[in-house]
């Protein structure tokens, strides 16, 4: 009997569902593994790669511009540690500010779109287009508009990059009300506001957190890449390109390693936030 209702929900959910499902499907933490091999296999593999890498470079005589030896990179990490920490703080700060701004904006826009049909009709094509275009290329636009001596352009790039997955995921969560909950609230003669407060918003929270988890590492990537487009040269990205331009490859790789650690930190923080908020719920977001 609820078939028509279900049908329309599914139809309207489809574009965003595939978009968010795609992101979720690909970036999710994967299945659960059991047993010691879960830890041993990747560790063994990782060490093997490092050893082979080291051997190929030192014994095979691979030129440094192709790939410096792991030991050379490690030495550079030690030597450059103060600079690495300083630049990582700048890039991490930009990523964090942009992430917070983008997260708040994405959630607010999604709530607005869920409540006002016109807003959703107008925002959906813009967000879909934004997910397809190279947003980092907007960096020069923001630099021109806000000046090249501030952190604002890069933070804005991060913000725009973050808004997209957060909006898509939140909007999806707000739409995914189970038909039985829908009917229950009608049977209880709940007002629209009560429906939003008791069912819609709490039900969307796992999806909001999934959006945050997906956006967190993307924020770091955007903050680094935005630096390649000019503006202030005080972050990890500009250090990588300037070291590479000076043929100091091991040093460049040291900054790459720092970028990877920073990205992992954001990813783990996002994952932790998601787990903490949704720990009492079965299923939930993707």
């Amino acid at each position, binding site marked *: 009997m609820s078939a028509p209702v279900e049908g329309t929900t599914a139809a309207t959910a489809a574009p965003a569902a595939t978009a968010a499902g795609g992101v979720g499907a690909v970036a999710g933490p994967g299945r659960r*593994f059991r047993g010691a091999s879960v830890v041993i296999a990747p560790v063994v*593999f990782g060490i093997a790669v490092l050893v082979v890498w080291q051997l190929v470079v030192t014994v095979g005589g691979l030129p440094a511009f192709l790939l410096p030896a792991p030991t050379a990179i490690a030495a550079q990490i030690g030597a450059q540690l103060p600079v690495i920490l300083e630049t990582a703080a700048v890039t991490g700060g930009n990523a964090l500010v942009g992430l917070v701004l983008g997260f708040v904006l994405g959630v607010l826009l999604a709530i607005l779109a869920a409540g006002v049909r016109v807003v959703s009709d107008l925002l959906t094509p813009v967000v879909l287009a934004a997910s397809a275009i190279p947003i980092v290329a907007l960096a020069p636009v923001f630099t*021109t508009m806000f000046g090249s001596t501030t952190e604002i352009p890069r933070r804005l790039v991060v913000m725009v990059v973050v808004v997209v997955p957060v909006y898509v995921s939140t909007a999806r969560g707000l739409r995914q009300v189970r038909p039985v909950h829908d009917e229950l609230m009608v049977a209880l003669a709940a007002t629209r506001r009560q429906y939003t407060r008791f069912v819609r918003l709490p039900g969307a929270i796992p999806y909001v957190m999934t959006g945050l988890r997906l956006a967190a590492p993307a924020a770091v990537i955007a903050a680094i890449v935005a630096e390649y487009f000019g503006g202030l040269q005080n972050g990890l990205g500009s250090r990588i390109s300037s070291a590479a331009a000076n043929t100091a490859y091991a040093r460049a790789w040291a900054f790459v390693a720092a970028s990877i650690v920073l990205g992992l930190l954001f990813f783990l923080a996002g994952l932790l936030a998601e787990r903490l908020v949704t720990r009492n719920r079965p299923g939930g977001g993707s």
Partner: protein
Amino acid sequence: MRSRGWLRSGAWAVAAFVLLVALWELAKLVLPADGVTVGGTRVLPRTDDAAMPHVWTVLARLGAPEVAGAADPRSVGAAIASGALFTLGLALGGLVLGGIAGVLLALLMQRFAVAEKAVLPYVIASQTVPLIAIAPLVVGWGGKIAIAGWAWEPWASVMVISSYLAFFPISVGMLRGLTSPRKADVEMFRSLAAGWWTTLLRLRLPASVPHVVPAVRLAAAAAVVGAIVAEISTGTRGGIGRLIIEYAQSATGDPSQMYAAILGAAVLGLVAAGAVGLLELGLRRYRGSVA
């Protein structure tokens, strides 16, 4: 019904972009020319023509010659179109290379559980770390190495970076797809004494389509971003990324040329997404093949 739905969302899309243009012009009209600065931080942008040119100025720029007074004047529009096509070609090449590698890795992981256990954590982690950071490093390859007599060209670096970014989403999406058939279906194939290949061709590949298509969409977007960023950091000429930087540096007083190039990059992304949409349409019959 269906075509009316398309028309309707098309109309809304047009309305949305008209509104964006109107907002841009409204900001120029209403906001102070030098922006708004609070405590030394500019919170609202400068809105004069040197920062936010009129939309029509940007569009008119497409028809203007790229270099004023050149003997063989090429219009900015033509330059952007050829740059975008060049980049699209590199991104497509990257997508194909990365796609092949990703599918192969996924097959390996599906076939051998040990491979999955050892490699998958890295594949997943690699999606969350800024791999694009290595772009300036692959640049170093240009002109320095030769493979079987073929000298490494800078554009090949761009394609490698692009393929690198496309590779991960596809390998993870493909693995998800290959392992998505229900247990009952896999056991049915086993009861028919079907081998690994038959199961792959008749069950796993068709079932993987709903997982692979969104992965390809992500990979295509990543390949485009990768190609543009790689062009910028490699200084490869001929692509849209390099054009953005060149225009940005050459015209500080009049950014409309740069804006036109960025617009070109956006169109490029949309074209790539549209191509994936067509692919999706062609594979539609497999959509419902997994529960």
